[in-house]
């Protein structure tokens, strides 16, 4: 899946489990034999990958929270993070 061409709604792959980590107060993204520790923004993005939103919609949603950050910068960060997830097979397009 190439994220650049994705206009569909996206969700985390079935193998992914988001697990709240009580030591850090953040989510960990777990998949077979591996895991990623998410920072606050990554956690917010991951939680929005429910199959209800497109990548652009996720970026717009975050722009409403982080009003001090230029929307272009937010869009770039959302894009980069989701591209990294897609590259690991952790993101799926909704049919």
């Amino acid at each position, binding site marked *: 899946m190439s994220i650049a061409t994705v206009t569909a709604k996206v969700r985390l792959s*079935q193998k992914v489990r988001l697990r709240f980590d009580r030591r850090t107060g953040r989510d960990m993204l777990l998949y077979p034999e591996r*895991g990623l520790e998410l920072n606050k923004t990554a956690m917010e993005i991951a939680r929005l990958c429910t199959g209800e939103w497109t990548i652009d919609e996720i970026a717009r949603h975050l722009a409403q929270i982080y009003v001090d950050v230029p929307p272009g910068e937010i869009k770039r960060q959302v894009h980069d993070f989701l591209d990294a997830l897609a590259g690991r097979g952790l993101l799926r397009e909704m049919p």
Partner: protein
Amino acid sequence: MRIEHRPYTLIAELTYRCPLRCPYCSNPLDYAEQAGEIATDTWLRVFHEAEELGVVQLNLTGGEPLLREDLELLVEGASKLELYTNLITSGIPLTFERLARLRALGLKSVQVSIQSTRPSVSDRIAGSPSFDRKLEAMQWVTSLELPLTMNVVLHRDNISEIEDIIALAERVSADRVELANAQYLGWALRNRAALLPTRDQIERARTVAADARARLRGTMEVLFVTPDYYATYPKSCMEGWGRRFIVVNPEGLALPCHLAHTIPGLRFDNVTQRGLADIWHHSSGFNRFRGDGWLPDPCRSCDRRATDFGGCRCQAFHVTGDAGATDPACSLAPDHDYIESVRTQTSLTAGMPVLFEYRTGRGSCPR
């Protein structure tokens, strides 16, 4: 200043018993001499203590973990703790019904190893007719929509099949394929003359794997593990001693790696006698190679010391006799000429048939 370490993964070696007899088995050479296996309740307590320490991933392995009749209870217990539970198996002995039950109890992923894409070769390496059953097991995994990792330990006799291995992984819809060259410790070290590929074989396989990785990005992860003997720098073995992983072996020893207890002079504790947190934080074995105070030259002043942590302690011991030496796999290591001489010897004997010594002992048969 003491560094606070957090383990993320518990590797639970449930048993050393296995129906296969692979000549590169990662279990210790004397596994058959080990005492019995710890009980269900002890494992469940260990999972709980591990989770409290910060563990989120659980690898159920062996030996062959399917030989534990309490596997269902262990998967269920791990699931209650929200551990991401991976079953690392040969696929034998398994039924569809048992796998479906394990999935319903909370199993999250399955790794199945094959020995070759050619049934006769796979069976010869495994020392037992098993290929067809493994194929069937992999199909069960994906039909139950569990993520499948297909693992193949690469060596001289199967590394040339790498395209076929990747094609098979695609055919069975694997989520990940591990093209893992044997690590030359334990049984693989004993069989090194029969197993170690030549540099040409390694380079070719690496290129094929890299092409497949690019082609399959986002669909199937292609992992290629270079053997230390052809690496420029050593691996960050277990991502550093006592940093990320805890291994608990079948008899209950808590270890930084699955062979740490084969290094003489180190003291390791048993989970039946001491709490896991106490062992992790305070035992002399776990603290022996933590941090960088112990590092020898040239690691001590090397920019890579926080990347590879001096490499593998077991390999350092087996080659130099000193577990505190730089891993000789490193091109900067004082003892690297040993690795070079093994490589030279391998290029000279390429193509010559060498017999395997199969792993043996009472543990090799299911009881």
